[in-house]
C-alpha cells in the first residue's frame, strides 16, 4: 500500500517557499532566480498593480456615501471589524461570568432555587456572520449531496431513468436562486409551523435555496461518471456474478468517484454564490445580510466594510474550492490525472 502524503503547498497551489529559502541562502543564484520570479514575483506584481489601479481609480469616484474606499480604508475597516468582534466576545464572556456568579450566589442562599441561564443577545459580529454563512452553506450543500449522488448513480445505471429525469434536470438547472427564493419562502412558511422551532425560518429558506441550486451539477457529473465506466470492468463484475450491492460499492462508485467529486466541487462553488444572495433576501444572519445591512446603514465607512465582505467572500470561496480539490485528488485513483 502506498501512502499518499498530502502536500499542502501543492494542494493549495501555493508558491514554493523552499525556492525562496534557497535563493536567500545564495544557492545557485541565477538558476533559482527565474523559477522564483515565475512562482512568486509575477503574482505579487499583478496584485500590486491591481492595488495601485484600485487606489487610483477609487479616489475619483464620489458616491452619496462619500468617496469609494481604496485599499488603505478597506484594510482599516477590516481591522475595525476584527476589533469589534474581540470587543463583543469580551462582553459576552463577562456577561456569562456575571450570570454564573449571580446564580452561584443565589444557589448558596436558597439551594432549591431554579436558576435560569439566559443566552447572551448581543449583535452578531462580522466573524459570527462568517461562521453562520459557512454553517448554512454546509447544511444546504450536504443535503444536496445526499439527494444528488444517489439520483446520479441511479441515472447512470439506468438509461430509462436517465431519459425520464433528464428534461427536468435540464430545465431546472439554469434557474436563478432569486427565482426560487419566493417560492421556498412561501412553502417553508406554510409547512414549517412549530411553536418551538429548532431552526429559524430564514436559515431554512437560505439552506433550501442553496440545496436547490447545488443538486444539479452533482447529479449530472455523477450520472456521467457512472455511465462512463469501462465496459470491460462491468464485464468483470458479470463474470464474477457480483451482486447489485457489491457491484455498486466495489466497481461503480470507485470508478465514478473522481467525477462525483468534480460535481461536488462545482456544486459547492455555486452554493456559496447562491448563499450570499439568499441571505440578503431571506434576512438570514450571515455575510449576505451583513452586506445588505451595511448598504441600508449608509454610514461613511459602509462601503469599506462591504468591500471587506466582498474580499472575504472571495477568499472563503477560493478556500472551499481548494478544499474540494484536495478531497478530489485524495479520492481519485488515477493519480496521474491533472486536476486544477
Amino acid at each position: 500500500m502506498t501512502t499518499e502524503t498530502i502536500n499542502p503547498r501543492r494542494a493549495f497551489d501555493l508558491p514554493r517557499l523552499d525556492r525562496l529559502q534557497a535563493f536567500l541562502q545564495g544557492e545557485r543564484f541565477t538558476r533559482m532566480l527565474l523559477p522564483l520570479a515565475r512562482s512568486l514575483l509575477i503574482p505579487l506584481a499583478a496584485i500590486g498593480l491591481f492595488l495601485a489601479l484600485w487606489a487610483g481609480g477609487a479616489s475619483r469616484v464620489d458616491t452619496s456615501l462619500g468617496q469609494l474606499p481604496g485599499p488603505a480604508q478597506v484594510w482599516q475597516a477590516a481591522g475595525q471589524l476584527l476589533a469589534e468582534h474581540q470587543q463583543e466576545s469580551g462582553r459576552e464572556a463577562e456577561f456569562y461570568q456575571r450570570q454564573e456568579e449571580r446564580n452561584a450566589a443565589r444557589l448558596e442562599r436558597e439551594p432549591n432555587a431554579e436558576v435560569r441561564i439566559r443566552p447572551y443577545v448581543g449583535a452578531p459580529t462580522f466573524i459570527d456572520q462568517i461562521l453562520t454563512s459557512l454553517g448554512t452553506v454546509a447544511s444546504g450543500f450536504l443535503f444536496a449531496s445526499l439527494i444528488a449522488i444517489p439520483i446520479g448513480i441511479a441515472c447512470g445505471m439506468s438509461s430509462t431513468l436517465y431519459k425520464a429525469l433528464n428534461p427536468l434536470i435540464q430545465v431546472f438547472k439554469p434557474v436563478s436562486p432569486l427565482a426560487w427564493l419566493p417560492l421556498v419562502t412561501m412553502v417553508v412558511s406554510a409547512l414549517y409551523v412549530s411553536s418551538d422551532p429548532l431552526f429559524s425560518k430564514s436559515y431554512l429558506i437560505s439552506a433550501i435555496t442553496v440545496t436547490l441550486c447545488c443538486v444539479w451539477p452533482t447529479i449530472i457529473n455523477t450520472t456521467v461518471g457512472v455511465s462512463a465506466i469501462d465496459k470491460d470492468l462491468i464485464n468483470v463484475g458479470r463474470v464474477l456474478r457480483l451482486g447489485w450491492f457489491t457491484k455498486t460499492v466495489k466497481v461503480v462508485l470507485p470508478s465514478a468517484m473522481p467525477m462525483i467529486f468534480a460535481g461536488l466541487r462545482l456544486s459547492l462553488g455555486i452554493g456559496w454564490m447562491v448563499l450570499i444572495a439568499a441571505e440578503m433576501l431571506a434576512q438570514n444572519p450571515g455575510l449576505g445580510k451583513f452586506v445588505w445591512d451595511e448598504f441600508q446603514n449608509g454610514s461613511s465607512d459602509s462601503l469599506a466594510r462591504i468591500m471587506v465582505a466582498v474580499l472575504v467572500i472571495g477568499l472563503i470561496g477560493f478556500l472551499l474550492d481548494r478544499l474540494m480539490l484536495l478531497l478530489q485528488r485524495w479520492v481519485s485513483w488515477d493519480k496521474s490525472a491533472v486536476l486544477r
Partner: protein
Amino acid sequence: MSYLNIDHIGITFPTDNGPLEVLQGVNLRVEKGEFVSLIGHSGCGKSTVLNIVAGLLNATTGGVLLENREVDEPGPDRAVVFQNHSLLPWLTVYDNVRLAVDQVFRKSRSKAERHEWALHNLEQVHMGHALERRPHEISGGMKQRVGIARALAMEPKVLLMDEPFGALDSLTRTHMQDTLMEIQTRLNNTVMMITHDVDEAVLLSDRIVMMTNGPSATIGEILAVDLPRPRDRLQLADDPAYNRYRAAVLKFLHERHRQPTAPAGEAQPSRPQLRVAAG
C-alpha cells in the same frame, strides 16, 4: 458428448442499416484439457464467439453447452482474461485477485484459505513480489499476469482469453507465452484463446481454429497441431513440422481469406451501450 460444445451458433446485431449477421453456424467441440486458439483477421467475429461462450453475449441461433449444461449467463466457471487486463485500478494487485477469490469461494473456503489461494495464484504468474502495487504502477505485461492470476484463481472449467498478449511488446509477449505454457503443463486447463499472432497460435495450441472473414463469419478450417510438449520456441524455430503448421495458417489467412481491402464498417458493431452526454 464433448466437454465444451459450441453448437451451430450464429449472432445477428441490429444496426441502423438493418440487421447484420456477424456469425453463422459456428460449430466446435473442445475436449477437457485442450488448448484451442481462434485465429482470424480483425473484425471476423472471433471475440464474439468468445463472448458468447463467456455468456456476455447471447447467440441468436444455436447454443453453447459446458459439461452438458447450457450457458446462458456469465459466470466464474468461464473466467475471461480480457485484452486490456481490466483490473480494477483502485485496488491493489492482491485485492484484485482477492475480490475474485472471495466472490467464488465465499462459502466453501475459510478466510485464511482464500488468502493463501490468492497468494498462490499470484506466485504462479510470478507476481508475488508486487502484491501491494496498484495497476497504474506496474507494466502492461505485469498487469496481464495479474489478469491471468485472477482468472486462474476462479478455478474455471474453461479459461477464455481474448487476445491476452495483443497489447504487449514482442519480448514481453514471449515471456508471457512461456509462463502460460508452464502453467498449462501443471494445471492442464481447458483453454480457448483468441489471437492474431500465427507463431503464438502454433506454439501454444493443440488445435487452431481458423475463421473466415465476416460478415456471416464461420469456421474455415481446423488445424490440429501435433507437436510434442513441452515445447521450446528455440528448438521449434528450425523444426520442419512447426514451420509446416505455421505456413498452413499463414496460407489460410493471407491467400484464401485475405482481409477485404475496404473493411465494410468493422464487421463487429459495438454493442448498444448507455451513453450520457456531458452537461
